[in-house]
């Protein structure tokens, strides 16, 4: 409770500083609409021309893509900036300052580095979800609503955990941001379309090694009632919350190991 009140304080200071540049603040959000809006437009263009991809129709692919975008947006509000700046903080020895604060270092970093850009991701995904729901026959009974929330939480946890793990690499390697770029952006590129269109090995990799498939593919399969390949047990559709929790635990473990290793660069 106490820490929530503290977070409210951090946020209010952060937003006050943002409001000094109000136009820039709104542009930060608007620019996400052009980036992801143009991606949506591309999906719309190919699927109007070709009708379906691997048996998934336009609105189904939009649903799939949006599940990824929304969970990424939610987790990044909090963990994107801290993890991105960690490389720089470790190099400069600034991380020392975080360690001497009377607070959990991870919580402290998250508290002080909100990232307003991702409000754009969230806003846009809500709009696209609203459009998808009108065109798709998803039964919204209590169980499905519950699972939707749980799956979204799980997906958010997976995305956050992967960001934390790749960010923690700063404690071992001097330049970790290019590692993050590959891990986050290149592998995430596979999630733009149903993973069933890729070769068997890529599907297995995305399920068991970097479990990105749980972010959007398996939950979407459930909600849209899609037949999967024989490769994965139907039970995988319910795996997202479990994988999210497990991966988050792993991420916190890696983070703690990283801090143990951190010695400061001296300055």
């Amino acid at each position, binding site marked *: 409770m106490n820490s929530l009140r503290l977070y409210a304080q951090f946020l209010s200071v952060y937003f006050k500083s943002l409001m000094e540049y109000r136009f820039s603040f709104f542009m930060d959000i608007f620019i996400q609409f052009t980036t992801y809006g143009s991606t949506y437009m*591309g999906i719309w263009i*190919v699927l109007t021309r070709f009708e379906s991809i*691997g048996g998934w129709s336009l609105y189904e692919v939009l649903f799939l893509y949006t599940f990824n975008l929304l969970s990424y947006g939610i987790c990044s509000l909090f963990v994107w900036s801290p993890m991105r700046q960690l490389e720089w903080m470790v190099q400069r020895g600034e991380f020392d300052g975080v360690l001497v604060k009377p607070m959990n270092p991870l919580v402290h970093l998250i508290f002080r580095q909100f990232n307003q850009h991702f409000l754009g991701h969230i806003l846009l995904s809500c709009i696209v979800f609203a459009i998808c729901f009108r065109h798709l026959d998803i039964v919204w009974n209590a169980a499905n609503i519950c699972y939707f929330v749980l799956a979204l939480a799980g997906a958010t946890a997976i995305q956050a955990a992967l960001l934390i793990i790749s960010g923690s690499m700063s404690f071992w390697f001097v330049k970790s941001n*290019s590692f993050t770029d*590959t891990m986050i*952006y290149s592998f995430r*590129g596979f999630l733009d*379309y149903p993973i069933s*269109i890729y*070769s068997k090995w890529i599907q297995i990799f995305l399920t068991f090694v970097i479990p990105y498939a749980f972010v959007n593919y398996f939950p979407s399969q459930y909600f849209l009632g899609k037949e999967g390949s024989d490769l994965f047990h139907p039970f995988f559709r319910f795996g997202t919350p479990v994988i999210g929790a497990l991966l988050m635990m792993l991420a916190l473990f890696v983070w703690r190991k990283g801090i143990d290793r951190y010695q400061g660069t001296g300055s």
Partner: protein
Amino acid sequence: MRLYFAFLANEFQTNLAYKSDVFLKMLGRVMGLFVQAALWTALYHNTVSAETNMGQIGLNDMINYVVLSTCISIMVNNNTIFQIGDKIRSGDIGLQLMKPVSLQTAMLFQAMGINASRLVFELVPLVAVAAIFYPLELPPVQVLPLFLIALANGFVINFLLAYTLGLVGFWYINIYHLSRLLTDVIKVFSGAWIPLWFFPQILTDLSEWLPFRLIYFSPITIYLGKTDAFDSLMIILQQFMWIGILVLVAKFVWHRGISKLVIQGG
């Protein structure tokens, strides 16, 4: 001229310092290639070829298209927009004004330097790796000169767009937004991702009036032999026309920007 080649060589060498990233970047590009190839393979699942206004386009054409588009992205991308934004923000632009060199030409040569080093350290490995999975078909020899000219012109057009938008930094300090906007517009309207022949009519018409398709789509269609000699020459003519227009726009923006520039202290 030799002066400007010094900018080129300098930037080439600077870029060499970041060799460690090259492997990761290449991994990223190869994965992007996998995604695109899988996308088109899946889209072509039910059909052998698609009827378009540029003739029949088969899956094979699309695989070649994807490889070519990835190669072009390595060759044309630059960080000109950030370089110039930084110069304006930091006031370095004042120093530039004192030097007897044209900023535009110097930056063009710097961009060429970066891309020359990418050609060696990123493009060649990528083509080699891509050849294992998606061997690129070579075009008839007589097409190559036209393709190379179109490619070089596309590079210049891309540079001029980035340069001009970078100059907007005189008025709008958050250059990151402008860069994102340019990337997004190019992503769709250049055909880097989806070839223009699959666009709905209204978007095809719109992109005819824009310069972006001349960076990716038009050179690729020349390579793939989808345009005859006359059309290829027309494309190159249009490119020169756009280069002319963009040079004039850049000059105009530059003069307006410089006349409003005030540099504090020093």
